[in-house]
Structures are given as structure tokens and as C-alpha cells.
């Protein structure tokens, strides 16, 4: 009984001597709530660090799961995107891709994702679109945006909302398919007047590299004009047209179909890039969470060890004071 009372006494005396330094050194790096620690509490509370560790661990679990989901989605969509490349290639061979064509009414079709957490792919496509917009706007020229996806919309609203003509969202509710994209392309064609459509998207190259790409599509009138004036589309005249249709009719059908095919490919490629970018973003964030967890664990263990050491010293010195 007397021993216990003495020990308590000893502690009370020891507290002010030992406490200030280790407490400050260890706690200051952990949380600003140092002042909130209850007075008279003997040990450095590791509660905050423990909570932090728990939350970091949970975040890491989430990012890992997101990475897995993105990886499996990517695998499904990658083959589809790669197969869809066969759709636009013949059109480019026939009608060409002429990004430098000089026309009055430009429409920039920016393709982005609805969801975030996928690295910088949306910003790159917005950046490219802005560049194209600037490049093609002048005193007599008209340049408009058609925006696909929530993210590009949010970025473009900030500085060029006057130029947005149509915005389209919720594209990826069902798995992407041609019918859907062609209905969408149809809507764009019907509601926008254009001489050239410039489709901006991220072309999928590998899981870690996406190339911002522009596909330029001309309206039938412009195609005809370009073909007559020679130039890049001059070869078009050497094709023979069967049946009773005139050339302009055929061209109109062709350009419409070309647009829907290019849109389909662009949407696929962009969705594929999105999943790839999300995968690598989530990979690095779970790695960062791991690093953080390691650091926190180290601090936690060190604090614990320090308090144990202090306690031992107290006991030993108390005992030696009694005996000595």
C-alpha cells in the first residue's frame, strides 16, 4: 500500500520533468490538436495516429479496388477499340484527313469522360480543343464546341461557355456500342451547322500512353470544293460512281457515315484511354498510400517505444531511489 502511494507520488513529480520535450518532439509532427490533450493525461496519445493509419489503409483498399475494376474494364474495351480502328481507315484513305483546311464554320467535338480520377486525359483533350478553337477563330470565322462528357464540360464552361453548342453526357451508362454513337452523331449532324468537324480524343496506344488526336471531317460541300480545286482530295474524281446518284448525293451519304464511324472510334479510344489512365492513377495512389502508411507506422511505433522507455526509466529510478 505504501509502495503504491509512493509510486504514484513519484510519478507526479516526474511528470513535469520528463514530459515537455518528448511530447513536443513527437506530437508536433502528427497533429495540431496538441493543446486539446487532456491535462494530467500521463501518456502521449497515439489515438490520432492510429485513426489516421486506419483511414489511410481504407483509402488504399479503395484505390486498389478501383484499379482492379479499371483493369478488367480496360481489357474488355481494348479489343473493341482496336477493332473499331478498321472503321475509319478506309474513309481516311478515300476522303483524307485535312487538318489544315481553311473554312468558315468550325465545330470542335471534344470527347472526355463522365467520371474523374483518371489522370490528365480530360485536361489534354480540353487543351487541344482550346488550341484548335483559337487557331480557327477569326473575324469571319465561326468556331463552336460540341462537348461529350461531364469533365470537359466542367472545364470549358469556365472560359468559353458562349461557344458551347451542345453538350452530351451519360454516354457510358450502357456498354458503348455503334448504334448509340451513331444516334449521337446523327443528333450532332442535325443540330450543328458546320464546314468542318474536328473530333478531339485521346487515342489509346498502350496502358500508359495516350496520344491526343484530332480527326478532321469536312462537310460534303467542302469535300466537293476541295476535290474540284485539286489538292489533297483531287484523286476523288478518279472514282467511278455506279448507279443513278449524283456525286453530291454519294458524298453526303459518305461524309455522314464517315462522321458516325469516326465518332464511334473516337469514343471507344477515349473510353479505353480513360480506363488505362485510371488504372495507372490508381496504381500510383495506392503506392503513395502504402508509403504514407509506412511512415505513419514508423512514427506510431517510435512513440509507443518512447513511452515504454520513459516508463521503464521511471520505475527503475524510483526503485533505486528507494533502495539507495
Amino acid at each position, binding site marked *: 500500500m505504501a509502495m503504491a502511494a509512493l509510486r504514484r507520488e513519484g510519478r507526479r513529480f516526474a511528470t513535469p520533468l520528463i514530459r515537455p520535450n518528448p511530447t513536443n518532439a513527437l506530437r508536433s509532427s502528427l497533429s495540431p490538436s496538441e493543446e486539446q490533450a487532456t491535462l494530467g493525461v500521463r501518456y502521449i496519445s497515439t489515438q490520432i495516429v492510429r485513426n489516421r493509419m486506419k483511414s489511410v489503409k481504407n483509402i488504399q483498399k479503395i484505390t486498389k479496388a478501383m484499379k482492379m475494376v479499371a483493369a478488367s474494364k480496360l481489357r474488355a474495351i481494348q479489343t473493341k477499340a482496336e477493332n473499331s480502328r478498321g472503321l475509319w481507315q478506309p474513309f481516311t484513305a478515300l476522303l483524307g484527313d485535312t487538318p489544315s483546311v481553311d473554312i468558315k464554320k468550325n465545330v470542335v467535338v471534344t470527347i472526355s469522360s463522365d467520371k474523374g480520377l483518371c489522370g490528365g486525359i480530360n485536361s489534354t483533350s480540353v487543351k487541344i480543343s482550346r488550341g484548335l478553337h483559337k487557331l480557327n477563330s477569326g473575324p469571319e470565322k465561326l468556331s463552336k464546341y460540341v462537348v461529350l462528357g461531364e469533365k470537359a464540360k466542367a472545364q470549358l464552361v469556365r472560359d468559353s*461557355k*458562349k461557344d*458551347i*453548342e*451542345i*453538350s*452530351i*453526357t*451519360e*454516354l457510358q*451508362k*450502357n*456498354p458503348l*456500342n*455503334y*448504334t*448509340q454513337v*451513331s*444516334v*449521337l*452523331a*446523327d*443528333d450532332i*449532324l*442535325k*443540330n450543328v451547322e458546320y464546314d468542318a468537324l474536328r473530333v478531339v480524343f485521346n487515342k489509346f496506344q498502350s496502358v500508359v500512353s495516350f496520344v491526343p488526336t484530332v480527326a478532321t471531317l469536312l462537310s460534303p460541300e467542302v469535300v466537293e470544293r476541295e476535290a474540284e480545286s485539286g489538292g489533297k482530295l483531287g484523286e476523288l474524281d478518279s472514282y467511278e460512281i455506279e*448507279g*443513278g*446518284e449524283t456525286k453530291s*448525293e454519294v458524298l*453526303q*451519304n459518305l461524309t*455522314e*457515315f464517315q*462522321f*458516325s464511324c469516326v465518332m464511334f472510334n473516337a469514343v471507344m479510344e477515349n473510353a479505353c484511354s480513360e480506363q488505362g489512365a485510371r488504372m495507372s492513377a490508381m496504381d500510383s495512389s495506392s503506392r503513395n498510400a502504402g508509403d504514407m502508411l509506412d511512415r505513419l507506422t514508423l512514427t506510431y511505433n517510435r512513440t509507443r517505444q518512447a513511452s515504454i522507455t520513459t516508463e521503464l526509466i521511471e520505475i527503475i529510478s524510483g526503485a533505486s531511489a528507494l533502495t539507495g
Partner: protein
Amino acid sequence: MASNAAVPFWRAAGMTYITYSNICANLVRNCLKEPHKSEALVREKVHFSVAKWVDGKPQKPIIRSDTPED
């Protein structure tokens, strides 16, 4: 390709080649035999929402969907 006689008619009805080819594609899909038919029809679902912008303000979005709203 579109047959010669039909073109002026669907053009006059305000259809684009895309709409026309979609209708044709759907017709072909409906000609499939059973297990494949429903598969093909389920695959080609349309859903997105379009909003027109007037003077820098989005108008009410229109949902283009062939599945009933849930």
C-alpha cells in the same frame, strides 16, 4: 448501299444516312434466329442525354434512351 429509288424519299423525310442505315441494321438484326437475336438487340442499347446551349446557358437536357426510365 442504298438502293437508287429509295434515297430521295428518306432524304425528303429528314433522315440522314446514319438513321437510314440504323433502321436497315435493326431490320437485319431482327432477322436473326433466336438466341442470337435477343443478344444482338440487347447489345445495341442507346442511352445518353443531350443539352443544347443558348447564350452560354445549358437548356434542359433531353434523354435519348430506348430503355424505360428506372
